[in-house]
């Protein structure tokens, strides 16, 4: 049943791009168009909703409260993303007279993509989860870290996509815009999910606070690096000479995001296999739940 729903959601995502493409074909639009706020909102929002449903179903043992997941998603869109913009453009103010290297892989590009833009974005997603739902009693197993962070990343992607689609004077080819929205959402969610994996484990780890902090930092940097390489390689792929190749970046983004997501999926399976909420041969699920509650208490007692 659940697998069927997941399949439907993925089919919906593909269908979304196809519909955009067909709409373009039928309407005979062969040039970039300017999307109004409404259309841009739909193009940015629909993939987010579908992906969110998909991610939600990943946590198969003890589904999180829907309103919490949705709330975290909204937090990602309305708190984390604007905050990231603020950090990027205010805390690190733009340079008035700058000469960027022309090579896409030059140090300044990599540095900016990973340690300024990437890190700022991931940090804000992290903060949006760490200081809200992380504190909640519903965050009661490591897998929840993945679910909530992916929800946050999904929301974050909505903001990013919306502004890319509807920005002042921005024009997009509809099909490419839709495809980008789909893969960007997956990418942002997956990068956040990597951090969420670490976050979830960190909450219930038995290790010292220092180790736990180092874990989190490493997770954050990993997510930032993944995020950063994305923009660097995208820049490189996008342009050859004077030609633009938007589809290349879509394909690359889809590839990388899927790869990260698959890795995350596999890691999640490990978490799920050890979930206190799993039904086991050794006892009823609720016994494990009780144990989990106590384990959480133990972790906190230790953290104190």
């Amino acid at each position, binding site marked *: 049943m659940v697998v069927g729903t997941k399949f439907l959601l993925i089919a919906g995502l593909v269908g979304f791009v196809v519909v955009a493409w067909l709409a373009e074909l039928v309407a005979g639009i062969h040039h970039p168009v300017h999307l109004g706020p409404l259309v841009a909102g739909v193009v940015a929002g629909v993939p987010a909703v579908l992906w969110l449903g998909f991610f939600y179903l990943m946590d198969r043992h003890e589904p999180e409260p829907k309103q919490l997941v949705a709330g975290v998603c909204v937090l990602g869109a309305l708190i984390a993303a604007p905050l990231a913009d603020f950090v990027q453009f205010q805390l690190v103010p*733009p340079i008035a*007279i700058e*000469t960027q290297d022309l090579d896409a892989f030059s140090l300044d590009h990599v540095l900016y993509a990973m*340690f300024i833009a990437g890190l700022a974005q991931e940090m804000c997603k992290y903060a949006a989860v760490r200081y809200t739902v992380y504190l909640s009693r519903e965050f009661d197993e490591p897998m929840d870290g993945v679910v909530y962070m992916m929800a946050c990343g999904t929301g974050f992607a909505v903001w990013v996509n919306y502004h890319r689609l509807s920005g002042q004077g921005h024009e997009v080819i509809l099909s490419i815009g839709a495809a980008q929205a789909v893969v960007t959402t997956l990418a942002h969610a997956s990068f956040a999910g990597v951090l969420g994996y670490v976050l979830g484990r960190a909450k219930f780890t038995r290790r010292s606070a220092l180790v736990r902090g180092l874990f989190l930092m490493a997770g954050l940097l990993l997510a930032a690096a993944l995020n950063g390489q994305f923009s660097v390689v995208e820049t490189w792929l996008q342009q050859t000479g004077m030609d633009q190749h938007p589809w290349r970046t879509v394909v690359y983004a889809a590839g990388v995001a899927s790869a990260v997501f698959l890795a995350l999926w596999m890691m999640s399976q490990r978490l799920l296999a050890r979930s206190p909420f799993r039904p086991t041969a050794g*006892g*009823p699920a609720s016994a494990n739940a009780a*144990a989990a509650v106590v384990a959480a208490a*133990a972790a906190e007692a230790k953290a104190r």
Partner: protein
Amino acid sequence: MAKRRSKAPTVAGEPAAPKKRRSRKKIEQPAAAAAPTDAPPPPPDATPPPNIPVPLQSTAAAAALEAARIVSEIVDIDTPTGAVIAAAAAAGAAIQVVRGESPPTIDPVTGEEVSTVRLSRERILKAIEDDAPGRAAVAAVEAADAAAEAPVSDVAPVAAIAALEAAAAATPARAQTEPPARAQTAPPARAQTVPPVERAPSAPPVADRAQSAPPVPERAQSAPPVRAQTVPPVDAIVDGGDHVHVAVAVNVHDHDDDHDHVDVDVVAATAAAPTATLAEPAPADDYDDEELDPVALAAAAIQRLRARARTNVAGLRVQYSRHDLLVILAAIVIIFAAGRAHDYLVTPPDIAFPPPGDVANPDHGITFVHPAAWLKPEATPLPSPRLVHDIAPLAATTSPHAGSADGLPYHVELTSSSDPAARIEVLVDKKPAWSNIVTDLDLDRRTRWGELYSLDDSDVRSIEGHQWLRTEYRYAHNAEGDVPRVDHAVEYATIDRDQIYVVTLFGSPAELDAVEDVVAPSLRVATPSALPLVPQTGRLAQRTFPTGVQAAFGATVMVVVADIVDGKLKARGGGSGVVVGRDGSILTNYHVIHDKNDRLHDVFVIGRFSAPDRAPELECAGRPSRSKLQRELDLALVKCDLDLDGRAWTPSQDVWTTLPAAPAKDVHVGQRLWVLGYPDVGGGGLTLYQGQVEGWDGEGTAPGTDFIKTDASISNGNSGGPVVDDSGRLVGIASAYRTKVTASGGFVKSAQVGLVRPIAAAADLLNIAIYGWTPREGHTGVDIAPDSVEPAATGVRISTRILDTANLAPIRDALVMVLRPGVGAAQVDVNALDDQVLSWGRSNANGDVLLKAPVPNPGEYTVMVTAKGYEPLIVDNELQLGSNTPPAYDPWGQILLHAR
């Protein structure tokens, strides 16, 4: 935490062992003694695998056992906190079962029976009032909380034991109905039973408790399994609204076979705490039972806990970890550091201007450093002047200053390759003859951008000991094919003996900041000597003066003269002037507005006093060729008729301050004088010099009273400015030169001496100013016989109405002129009217007209009326005024004009 954990095994006298092994080991020690009376008969099989479900057993002991077993698989019960948690879980389960509050349910998945406990803190607290088990539960809660909270490690196990015992007490309390004893056992009291336990970990705590509470032995036997639990750590997680929930779900499986094992496990959980207790204190060499009273510490901790439990924040704090905040801080630090590194990487290096060996852009004496991201300098054409553009053709034909062979002006522009809106302009030119560069540059900018230029800030900065005038301004411009926009600019300018250097930075404010940071400190000129940019003497801020003199500031104006050279307006010099008419008439020296070739300059610009030691504010412009001149007296009367953008302009009435004239008889030798003006030193504001009347002098070498001699400093640029007495009355006009008109009619400056032309000498011009006049090309003469001009202190203000004869409709803009006495219809020269008109007025939309100047009476005057589209009317001696004519008079009522 790590430290504590590593210590524990050592202290306990055994190597660190995996949790499970250790638990099991402990289990075996107290097994026999711990058989609970309440529990069903233990099954013979003593070693079932821990995960095998056991049948539900409704006794507290079994519940506690199972809870402890589950917990011990999850937490490390070797640590104090682990022990506490295990104990807490067990106790909670036991209490729940004993109270029968949570009947077992069937797990839908496995079909096994499940016991779930849900307690709220409020309910627990309420239980204190109700019964002993409840109180015991509370004691367990608090003890475990205290254990987790206590800063001293050995309190944890102590509290854990207290919890265990409290829980143990709960069971018999229910079973044997003996609450009172337990009720009295407050947490500290219970804790006091602990030390004996510590000392004999292998012995069942039951025995020890017996010492403090008689009923204990029985209780103890039924209780051991129960001890395992304190709900509180669990409790702490769940921070809700008003109360805190404790939720411990426990599986109790009852297997007859397993009963032995059950007992064993419970004891294991129980024993874990004492073990931990011992483990902690022992490792510390200086540990002394006497030194730290664990009971007292636990009691204090409980007090703290109680206080804390009143706030909802308490639960939150548990979740809050400073270490995690450090992650955010570290990330921000990294972002900052990366920002700086990125800044360093993308900031273009600095390169020198002019580029070394650049033949096309030779060094004109100025060097500076700028960011490399700029295109090569390219020559730019000088902008055509906006000011007086309408007289450019005139100037082009008459200007003698065309072309220069030395490559000046040198004007190049560097454009940013990252943002073409950002530019650096370099201008090197011959120093203007007149070195007041503040006004000169202001004029220059205004001619480029006209009224769309706005000065923001201006000050003098010293760079490497050389003064530079830094000016910030905004200007509106409209590049070809671009939308009009307002941009910012910062200009650095200086002069040396020969040249003026202007470096202007254009761009967005952020770009300006970035570029200025690089360029400004590196500005150098070849001869860093030069003139000061602001005058050091005569500044108002440093002077004291009578208030009467202060009133003269507003009447003192700067007169800048300029020529059109190669299509560009160039300031040629300047002097001062004094306002003598409320219509904006300004009296100055003739030699101010003409050049050494006796040629009138193309334009004069009037700057008015703004504030002490600030450059005057440029207000309006006019043409010397339209002024009234008295060459012999070296005097000129000028009036603006252009604005700074070169459009026709009429001075506002009554905004011009005039000065009363000092009667000649009041001027005597030794009297104090004040000379006001804008001398030609750099670019400061109004200056004030003090002196006294030293005597009189005549024209040339002849004796006479043509000039007042003074010792006040009168230098080039003071010329034309007012000289006033202490009460601010106008004594004369300062003149830096003695001039003479040669026999051939030429005009030469004969000597540079500071003299004052008495104001009486300017009577003719003053009269014109008082009557009012209109600047006109070619009407520079003052050919009025002095005796024909009576002072118009009294007279008649003439008014009338001009109508169309056909329909009596008012005629707008009709001109009513009263001609001077002696000028009749036959003498009227329509091309020299302003010399012949005594007073005039123009009708408004209602046809009403009021002559501007009063007409002296008595007298007979010829009147002329003209209007566009109507036949002119001129009648000899039409206006006849008697000595008794009222001061306001309409002689005709209405004047009718015929349309052409």
